[in-house]
């Protein structure tokens, strides 16, 4: 009896000392559904409603000319959450099209703040505000250039806050495209040495930007019945189904924290519709990016170079045109020619190869401080890329069985993993 009590006490003590490793119970096994729905409320961790944070307003290039149509993008905003005592500072990079306070960024900011870190949240370089204020070329997607732009933003933000806080170490993380960019920023930091990041975590990164973007482009174009000319009837269909879910006796309310989860439980859309939705959201992000890049580079792609629209002009027709342009069209028609002009002899394949983790593989292989967390069913990984991550990172890769692309990021166990990763002292976590 006494022995048993002792054993029970020992196990309890052990569990307490390890801080109760959360069991991973993320329930959605369809990666498309997981990507759209995210994490059900029951699986989310408890996070503070409000935290000590403020908005930083940065001017990156003093002499930058802001086109009239983009007049409101005169400064870059970041979020800064701080501790009153000495703590490590984590820089976070948002995913494609997301800004510094997207839902995922705010969730991570709270989780890291609660775990005792200072946090600086940075918008994705694909965000219009970043393209206008902080990108040297204003043509995002070039991982080495993006890393230089991000590094410059981090330095500027750090300059603004360094006298107000005490920092013990610098860490770096990012999700989706931001995860991939974190690796490139880390590599740049090895030579620049401003932060000397002690640990870096890539969350659901793309291995090859080109492959991931091709997958997302196709999700829209292959799954809207009748093609993009039919987008209106597809959308009306989706919206009327959504409307039906919010009516009647068993209606699901918009305010419900599990709104999408319940819609999927009671009125499950088809796999094709779900894939098209993911593609649609991505297309809106890439459209915002492409039009902004075009205006910043003097037009000629979508807006006429000798009639750049102004703040009072309608953008509706340009929106129709841009929405038809896939990310890969942008890559071939605007991006590649620009870098070819800068670097004669550059081939399309060479540029595609530069846009991947393979490009910095020797660095990633030996950089023990860099870890990856992703899902076995992440939609943005092409075939073979998950194995590539496993082989390249070995024990530094944590792979969850499900969650799609960032669908499980709000899951308790996942959040605990990404916070514990930085909490663990030195080396491996």
């Amino acid at each position: 009896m006494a022995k048993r009590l002792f054993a029970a006490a020992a196990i309890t003590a052990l569990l307490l000392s390890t801080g109760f490793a959360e069991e991973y119970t993320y329930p959605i096994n369809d990666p498309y559904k997981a990507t759209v729905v995210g994490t059900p409320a029951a699986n989310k961790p408890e996070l503070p409603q409000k935290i000590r944070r403020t908005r930083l307003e940065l001017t990156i290039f003093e002499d930058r000319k802001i086109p009239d149509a983009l007049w409101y993008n005169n400064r870059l905003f970041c979020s800064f959450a701080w501790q009153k005592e000495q703590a490590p500072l984590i820089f976070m990079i948002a995913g494609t099209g997301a800004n510094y306070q997207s839902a995922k960024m705010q969730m991570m900011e709270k989780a890291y703040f609660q775990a005792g870190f200072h946090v600086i949240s940075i918008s994705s370089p694909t965000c219009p505000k970043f393209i206008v204020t902080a990108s040297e070329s204003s043509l995002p997607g070039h991982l080495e250039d993006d890393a230089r732009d991000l590094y410059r933003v981090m330095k500027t933000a750090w300059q603004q806050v360094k006298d107000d806080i005490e920092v013990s170490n610098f860490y770096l993380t990012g999700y989706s495209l931001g995860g991939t960019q974190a690796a490139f920023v880390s590599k740049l930091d090895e030579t620049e040495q401003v932060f000397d990041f002690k640990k870096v975590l890539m969350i659901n990164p793309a291995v090859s930007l080109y492959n991931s973007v091709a997958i997302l482009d196709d999700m829209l174009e292959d799954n809207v019945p009748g093609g993009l000319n039919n987008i209106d009837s597809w959308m009306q269909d989706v919206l009327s189904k959504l409307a039906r879910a919010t009516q009647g006796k068993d209606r699901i309310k918009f305010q419900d924290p599990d709104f999408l989860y319940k819609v999927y439980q009671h009125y499950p859309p088809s796999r094709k519709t779900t894939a098209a939705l993911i593609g649609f959201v991505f297309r809106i992000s890439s459209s915002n990016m492409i039009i902004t890049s075009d205006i910043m580079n003097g037009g000629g792609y979508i807006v006429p170079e000798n009639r750049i629209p102004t703040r009072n002009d309608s953008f509706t027709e340009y929106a129709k045109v841009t929405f038809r342009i896939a990310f890969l069209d942008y890559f071939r028609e605007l991006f590649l020619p620009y870098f070819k002009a800068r670097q004669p002899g550059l081939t399309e394949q060479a540029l595609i190869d530069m846009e991947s983790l393979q490009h910095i593989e020797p660095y990633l292989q030996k950089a023990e401080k860099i870890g990856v967390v992703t899902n076995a069913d992440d939609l943005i990984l092409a075939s073979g890329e998950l194995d590539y991550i496993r082989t390249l990172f070995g024990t530094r890769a944590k792979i969850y069985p499900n969650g799609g692309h960032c669908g499980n990021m709000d899951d308790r166990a996942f959040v605990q993993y990404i916070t514990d990763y930085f909490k663990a002292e030195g080396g491996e976590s």
Partner: protein
Amino acid sequence: MKKPLVVYAFTVMLACAVLTGCAGVAPVPDPIIAPMHTADEVVKEDVTYPIDVYDPWEGFNRRMYRFNFYFDKYVFLPVVGGYETITPNVVQTGISNFFANIGDVFNLTNCLFQLKGKPALNTTGRLVINTTIGIGGLFDWATPMGIDREDEDFGQTLGHYGVGSGPYLVLPLVGPSNVRDGSGLAIDYATRLLIMAAIDPYENCSGKDARTIEAILLTLEAIDKRHNVAFRYYETGSPFEYALVRFLYSELRKIQIAQ
């Protein structure tokens, strides 16, 4: 005789030149250099584009959108920020509940206008419960009791009876709307004045005091409304934001009217 005429003609010419900004001598504008992708290539007559919302006053609307941004930046958001700093969260929730309870009056009138029996009963129940045991609406006991809020307004009532949305309209302070919903807002406000006149809550106050109380309440209500809306103008930074917001507003209203 001749000289004055010449002078007159010259004066007229000069005036015209000044008024038209010397249009007469300005060169014909260069022909547009076509970009790589044009609307001609993509936009087709027989295709419906979801981004198209009837917006004949877009120029005015875009200016009003910009005005709202500046109003937010220099007046509304600083005031809301101050309000959030000085009032504890429970007080904020109480104030939100209070105005939501007043809002339930218009949810009720509009349920009745649309002859929606059960929602009207529910809303009546909410009003009774929250006004009494919810102490004048400061606490929302009805929702945890399973009596949900029915969001109805006169714009939806008009839509319910088949009134089209009319042109898109960005209203000062309020933001995205259209002619139907803007009129609905005015009717709801008129209803409010009628009800106020009928119950006369300020009967013991002087006319001046009554107006002051009403002004304070209206201001607090506006602050509470803004406090509950996360939207920030130009936050996406995208030149398509105006069109995307217009699209989302229109679709959201369609869903609300269908309910």
